[in-house]
């Protein structure tokens, strides 16, 4: 039986746009505009989409690194206790900060250059009640070994490490309080392909050992295919398709996902793929187009797309749940 760990309901993050002498608010960037999403315990949920579609903002909103403007983020503990996170006071958030952690994209800015690894990792441990220095050193040392690094590295400075090593230290930091869910915000995008594979393998191994759940934010669909149980595709702050990962590749429903998938390079000369090239740029999230946000670039757009906003509807492919928001899907909708 699948159990949820997080339930997002109508999460919105709007950033005010200020202009003029008095910094009047003239509009809002709708970075995340109403996202409903369930994350199940023990799964790897991919969150894909092109730059600027709000994937990172959504990830940060879950951890309240960015305050959501509206909507609910519910955390469900192992004993089925639901807690709404967005309305909590800063102090009351602490026990949940332990459960939810994040691995960042840029290995060069994710470690404090003035501190040794131990120096920058020990404060969170101290805060969450590990008082003795020996114990803190032991925890960090053990985790360093878990990510295939040497214990002694904790006394070194970040500039002494390579990008891949730093990223593994970033993983150690996320793991040090034994979280349940880790948001991997483009965790491997900045690395070489060979190192990417190494870090991904490590992440999967850690997931098995420590019973983790990942929200894997990426723009690289070729990575998600092998990694994720389910994939959510985002466009302009909304989820346009959400399904089991093999269904996304074999039974694509949304034209945007189709275009994304056609862009994955295939290492096979004989295999001819039809490349769908999208025209233009992502529309401005300050005033998204009327109707379906994707219609100005959609190769299949019809009149209804220009006026009516499609909602995320439930379909079934291969016996799996498959959500998509498009007017042009001719599958029976399941309620």
């Amino acid at each position, binding site marked *: 039986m699948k159990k949820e760990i997080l339930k997002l309901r109508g999460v919105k993050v709007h950033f005010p746009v200020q202009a003029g002498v008095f910094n009047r608010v003239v509009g809002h960037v709708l970075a995340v505009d109403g996202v409903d999403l369930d994350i199940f315990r023990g799964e790897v949920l991919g969150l894909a989409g092109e730059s600027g579609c709000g994937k990172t903002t959504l990830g940060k909103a879950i951890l309240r690194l960015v305050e959501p403007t509206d909507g609910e983020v519910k955390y469900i503990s192992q004993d089925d206790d639901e807690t709404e996170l967005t309305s909590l006071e800063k102090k009351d958030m602490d026990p949940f900060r332990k459960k939810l952690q994040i691995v*960042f994209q840029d290995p060069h800015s*994710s470690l404090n250059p003035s501190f040794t690894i131990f120096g920058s990792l020990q404060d*969170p441990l101290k805060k969450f009640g590990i008082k003795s220095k020996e114990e803190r050193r032991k925890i960090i040392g053990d985790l360093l070994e878990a990510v295939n690094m040497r214990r002694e590295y904790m006394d070194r400075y970040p500039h002494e490490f390579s990008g891949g090593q730093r990223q593994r230290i970033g993983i150690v930091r996320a793991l040090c*309080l034994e979280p349940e869910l880790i948001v991997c915000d483009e965790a491997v995008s900045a690395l070489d392909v060979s190192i990417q594979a190494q870090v991904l393998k490590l992440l999967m191994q850690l997931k098995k050992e420590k019973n983790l759940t990942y929200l894997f934010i990426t723009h690289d669909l070729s990575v998600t295919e092998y990694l994720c149980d389910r994939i959510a595709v985002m466009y302009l702050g909304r989820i346009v398709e959400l399904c089991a990962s093999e269904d996304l590749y074999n039974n694509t429903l949304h034209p945007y996902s189709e275009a994304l998938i056609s862009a994955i390079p295939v290492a096979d000369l004989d295999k001819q793929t039809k490349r769908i090239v999208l025209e233009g740029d992502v529309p401005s999230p300050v005033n998204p187009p009327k109707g379906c946000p994707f219609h100005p670039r959609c190769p299949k757009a019809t009149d209804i797309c220009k006026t009516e906003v499609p909602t995320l509807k439930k379909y079934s492919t291969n016996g799996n749940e498959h959500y998509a928001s498009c007017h042009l899907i001719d599958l029976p909708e399941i309620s």
Partner: protein
Amino acid sequence: MAKSSLDKKFDQIRKREEEKTFSTKKRSRIVNKFLNNRLAVLGLIIFTIIILASIFAPLLSPYDPMRVDLRSMRQPPSFDHWFGTDSTGRDVFTRVLFGGRVSIFIGLGSAILSAVVGIAVGCYAGYKGGWIDVIALRISEIFMSFPQIILVLLLVSITGQSLFNLMAIFILTGWGGMYRLARARMLSLREEEYVQALRSFGLSTFTICYKHMLPNALSPIMVNITLSTAMFILTEAGLSFLGLGVPLNIPTWGNILNVAQDILILQNYWWMWGPVGIVISVFVLCVNFIGDGLRDSTDPSQQG
């Protein structure tokens, strides 16, 4: 084949690594980098000498800096009076030594104190942003737009001339620059991912901004402290001349230098203003070298 010297060195390093004796070096990383900078070390040595000489002035000179000796007026440098004597027969060397006490105290003291105020406000406001930042910014603008001289005049006419009034004014007008520097650094640092990571642990604002972010913002501030030390010493000299700074009976480098306003002295008695001028320049230069060295050694992005 015999081992090359490089091989031997490498073996030694490996041996030390196995014995885990490497970790001892980390404590002195900043000190090491500082000591490798020749100019900074030279600056530090002269700086220390000048400060020690000022502190132990009574031991180094038999004269009283305030005692008027009309029999030995305007004497050129000699074995009795190393820098000669001034128009009232006071020993210039002694006055330079004693003047250093006050001048250095005012310069360094106001620079460090205004840095402390500026950093404390700047870090917090820069990291927090929002209305705290706006208020702090406006207050600093008010203080920076107020002419120093008017402030000095105001305070002197209310409470009379004193050293501490002068320092208070230097701090009031000086913290704004430090604040802006610290704030600007914090604004860029707070977007760094390690700061986000610390926030995701829910650490307190104080721990994040004063413990984790401040060390990365310090290097430009260090340089600024040294620059404003020099500036404050010079400003003190200027204000003392106008009769607004340190009371004239207390010897300071500025007070000594001000006899050079008299064209007669400037032309005929070089020893009254030359040596003290050189001491001021050398001291300011040394402070700048030290600041440079500190910036290089505390900058975490410079390796080595």
